């Protein structure tokens, strides 16, 4: 349905969105690149000149670099695995006939609407506090010593909090996908005598592949940049310093813009690697 008129109109109408995003991407990116080659310390003399690759070398050779990559991967990977695994289970449960399905659905999706700062604070204090937290009460009730969550198992704790926030999203997408599954197909499989596990493996799971891809993509986008949850809970201590948080500290806390910018460039490269990888999958799945 494309004519010259509609094509040129289309270009025109796309222009504002493309333009603002291009500016939003290129200007700060350019500045970050520029700073990353400068020795730039606003509190200690400002721009002290060209630094060459110094910042890049220092950022990777710093003792915090690899641990930050590690915690980033653990958090993103952990949350993805947990939300997708439990998301599938929960979606299949919610798909069953029951009373009050609508209300249960609301209960399950509610955490998604809680702002990250709130959920981090509530979990940190009211649940994970080693003295007064609800989990400490629970542990003591069973005669166990309360766990000091955020310092003993900090990564696990953060994964738990973030998973709680994102499980609703995964569940809802997967539920929607399951509901679109043709029940004839399942019944046919049932008639053919396929046991539950096989029906799940050969019919339900393949049907969900597109939905799982979407969950992967969207969650990865958001998880790579989680910030508030760490900012509020551990402040990056106890090995929970993700790459994002490390750069944040370099830039704002130690006010070393050059070093932080070099880190930013690394983060951008990492994000792009992930992005290209994900886009490949999603690009294929987008054509429906």
């Amino acid at each position: 349905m494309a004519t010259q008129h509609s094509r040129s109109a289309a270009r025109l109408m796309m222009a504002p969105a493309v333009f603002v995003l291009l500016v939003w991407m290129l200007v700060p990116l350019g500045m970050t690149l520029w700073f990353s080659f400068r020795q730039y310390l606003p509190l200690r003399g400002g721009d002290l000149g060209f630094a060459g690759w110094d910042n890049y070398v220092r950022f990777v050779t710093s003792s915090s670099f690899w641990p930050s990559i590690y915690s980033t991967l653990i958090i993103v990977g952990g949350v993805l695995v947990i939300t997708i695994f439990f998301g599938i289970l929960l979606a299949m449960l919610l798909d069953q006939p029951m009373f009050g399905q609508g209300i249960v659905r609301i209960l399950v999706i509610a955490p998604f609407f809680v702002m990250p700062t709130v959920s981090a604070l509530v979990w940190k204090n009211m649940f994970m506090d080693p003295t007064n937290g609800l989990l400490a009460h629970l542990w003591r009730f069973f005669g166990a010593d309360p766990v000091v969550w955020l310092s003993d198992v900090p990564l696990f704790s953060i994964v738990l909090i973030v998973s709680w926030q994102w499980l609703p999203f995964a569940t809802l997408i997967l539920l929607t996908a399951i509901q679109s599954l043709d029940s004839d197909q399942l019944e046919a499989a049932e008639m053919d005598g396929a046991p539950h596990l096989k029906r799940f493996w050969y019919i339900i799971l393949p049907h969900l592949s597109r939905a799982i891809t979407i969950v992967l993509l969207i969650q990865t986008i958001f998880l790579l940049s989680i910030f508030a949850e760490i900012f509020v809970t551990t402040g990056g201590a106890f090995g929970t310093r993700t790459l994002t948080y490390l750069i944040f500290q370099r830039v704002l806390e130690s006010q070393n813009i050059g070093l932080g910018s070099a880190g930013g460039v690394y983060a951008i490269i990492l994000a792009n690697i992930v992005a290209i990888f994900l886009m490949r999958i999603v690009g294929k799945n987008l054509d429906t």
Partner: protein
Amino acid sequence: MGRITLEKVQKKFGETEVIPPLDLTIEDGEFVVFVGPSGCGKSTLLRLIAGLEDVSSGEIRIDGQPATDLPPAKRGLAMVFQSYALYPHMTVRKNIAFPMKMAGMDQAEQDRRIKKAADALNLTDYLDRRPGQLSGGQRQRVAIGRAIVREPAAFLFDEPLSNLDAALRVGMRLEISELHSRLETTMIYVTHDQVEAMTMADKIVVLRAGNIEQVGSPLELYREPRNVFVAGFIGSPKMNLMSGPAAQAHGAHTIGIRPEHLDVVESGGTFSGKVGVSEHLGSDTFFHVHVDAMEEPMTVRAGGEVGLRHGDMIHLEPQADKIHRFDEKGLRIA
């Protein structure tokens, strides 16, 4: 007024040429049907005229004015789509009023025309309903109503009846013909159904793979198909086409004989064969006759109450002046 001329109009999608350069003139007030098998480019041709697609080269004129580069909104044409394309969020009244509203027509005139269209199309009781609450035939009428209120230079119909059931289709066919004789506006109608083409058209344009195979009145196409394709496409049931010795006897590569031009004779006859399936329509009966040395059964039209049964042997004689002859390129031999 609505005289539409296409000069060397060509359409390519990327590298593939869907419509090779063609010339066509549609006279004012004519009912022209584009007919052909699916994928023949008839809808594309209509969309080129509508302005919904660009021509790759060539010129379109409407009433002598160049229209090639005009956007659809400026061509003064109205279109009825296969899916009706009604605005689901508007009432019937608003649907019909939409083109007038876009033209900035004053409210009194809009109301007058809506009333007139609604009366003509039996829609008066439905004006405040939404398309979702209407039957297929009613939606079709709304789509037509939306087209006529603009008093366009020409109407374009893109397979408008293909979503209706058989009974409704016949009724709507008559209504559209009726509408044409009342409005006397140019209509271009796209269909793959040759019965619609034959019954409605002043002029039929037979298309195949983007090429115009023949242009002419229904009877011209019936009597003198220019080539084998048109011969086989126009007429129901299909013309019997045969090549080989039977054709050579008439000095042609292929000959065609319509089922209604084969007489059943007592004995002798050019063809003899066994009766296969017979279709009794009451007024007519069509026999499929298996003739030796011929792959396809021949179709024969006989009177309504002929007592032939499956397996009977019959003899057929074509009416001598009704045999169509074609050369090896498939072109008609005069």
